């Protein structure tokens, strides 16, 4: 069984994002970039399936600028077997990304594609569901636990009221939520080994996918800021403020 895992290069989750003065986007120059945290969880799950003997090969895919190869190397250092880099300058929308992944899935023939539920840059939460739709596969999104049982995956999903369990037929797309696992750190020997693992490079055009976006971004602006308020000295003052100043209780 083969598993495909898309990994996205995003601004590191610890970085305070700044909007560019000309409102065309956010500042990316000299900003630390990392693998999308949900994709780390996806890679970790794929590697655990390999370690358990359920899966033979884990393929990491990244779509974007040349530096996405660093993100793929991170996945390889964690334990993925090989990488595919789809080179493209500029942001791609989830629908284009799903189309690229669909063609790759047709070529590679994975049984499971594990996708992070959301990228922390555009916060779209779409790619996995779109990919499942384009492939005509079933989907288990926002999963916190999976068990592979022959032809099916039993998945526990994080939903608004708690947890939901369903089975989905293989091949399937899974999207990962935070509680699925805790991703490992790559060890130094594995980082060295990852340098020798192969990364194939292609373009969306090679795959016959038109990379044009559908949405026109008119501007990217600062959100309304919230002013810090006052410190209260004790609980009595707090309750008084809430009752008589803010009038919310």
């Amino acid at each position, binding site marked *: 069984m083969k598993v495909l895992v898309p990994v996205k290069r995003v*601004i590191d989750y610890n970085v*305070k*994002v700044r*909007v560019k003065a000309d409102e065309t986007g*956010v500042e990316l120059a000299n900003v630390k970039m990392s693998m999308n945290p*949900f994709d780390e969880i996806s890679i970790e799950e794929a590697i655990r399936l390999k370690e358990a003997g359920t899966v033979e090969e884990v393929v990491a895919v990244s779509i974007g600028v040349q530096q996405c190869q660093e993100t793929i190397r991170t996945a390889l250092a964690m334990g993925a077997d090989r990488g595919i880099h789809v080179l493209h300058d500029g942001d791609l*929308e*989830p*629908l284009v990304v799903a189309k690229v992944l669909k063609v790759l899935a047709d070529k590679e023939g994975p049984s499971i594609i594990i996708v992070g539920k959301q990228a*922390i840059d555009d*916060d*779209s*939460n*779409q790619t996995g*569901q*779109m*990919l*499942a*739709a384009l492939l005509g596969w*079933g*989907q288990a999104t926002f999963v*916190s636990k999976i068990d592979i049982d022959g032809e099916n995956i*039993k998945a526990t999903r*994080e*939903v*608004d*009221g*708690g*947890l*939901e*369990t*369903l089975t*989905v*037929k293989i091949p*399937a797309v899974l999207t990962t*939520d*935070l*509680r699925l696992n805790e991703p490992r750190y790559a060890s130094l020997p594995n980082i060295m080994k990852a340098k020798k693992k192969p990364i194939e490079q292609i373009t969306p055009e090679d795959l016959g996918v038109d990379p044009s976006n*559908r*949405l*026109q*971004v008119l501007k*990217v*602006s600062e*959100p309304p800021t*919230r002013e*810090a*308020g*006052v*410190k*209260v000295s*004790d*609980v009595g003052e*707090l*309750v008084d*403020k*809430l009752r008589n100043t*803010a009038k*919310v*209780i």
Partner: protein
Amino acid sequence: MTTLILAEHNNTEMNVATLNAVTAAQAIGGDITVLVAGKDCSAAAADVAKIDGVTAVKVVDSPEYENGLAENVAGLVVNMANGYSHVLATATASAKNIMPRVAALLDMQQISEITEVLDDSTFVRPIYAGNAMATVRSSDAIKIITVRGTAFEAAKSDGGTASIENESFAGDAGLSAYLGSELSESERPDLTSARIVVSGGRGMQSGENFPIIESVADKLGAAVGASRAAVDAGYVPNDYQVGQTGKVVAPDLYIAVGISGAIQHLAGMKDSKVIVAINKDEEAPIFQVADFGLVADLFTAVPELDQELVKNGFGS
């Protein structure tokens, strides 16, 4: 313009999240049809028909829609979407699961979690955990949109007199099957629609300490939430999580207890009207967004707050 809204419901009643999508659809303009897909869902459909502003309700009542499986519901929505200019749903876990599948099948680029409608094809949506707001214009023939519930007032749930039409559509995709749910049982209000929310973070140190904030919450008629740290540590279930990748809330009053205020948490609550922070670390970033900050040990301050509320006549 004519909008189709996918209703959120549990077959026996409508989920109030549906009301926010109706308001967003009104901002877009034109007739509003709401689709209720489920099994034995006529009671939910009757709720929806009473929403002020809804023109028509379409009901598809069939076993394959009972549990909202994405493959089945998306197939239905795709089949019905023809002729509509917009398809909307409030961005609940269920809609987030279904709507991108609809969009891809229709070859449309979904616009996720809009917070503002500028015109029928231009929308504002938060990116980077709400640290930037993107204004985007769609030229797709059918705009597939999820709506951030906290950004649109709930439409009135009565006064409407929409027609109810039953439609039949058979569509079990046969790709997945529902096994069951473990839903948190609570007498407290729903986190996303509560007027007051009291949340605990890593500072709570253990799930066993949560009763001290639950006691305060119950006196105020509040919902209880948590930061990701508290959920990851297993203090409380996943559905308590407020933040970028959890629930987004905007109550009248949000009380953050032992929460440092990581940007990912702020993304889920910074639109609250009044924010209170109780934290012993006066440098904690939560104080930068708090209207009222109390620098104190929560294990002293929260029981005191409980007592002070009793003195002021709450929960008596």
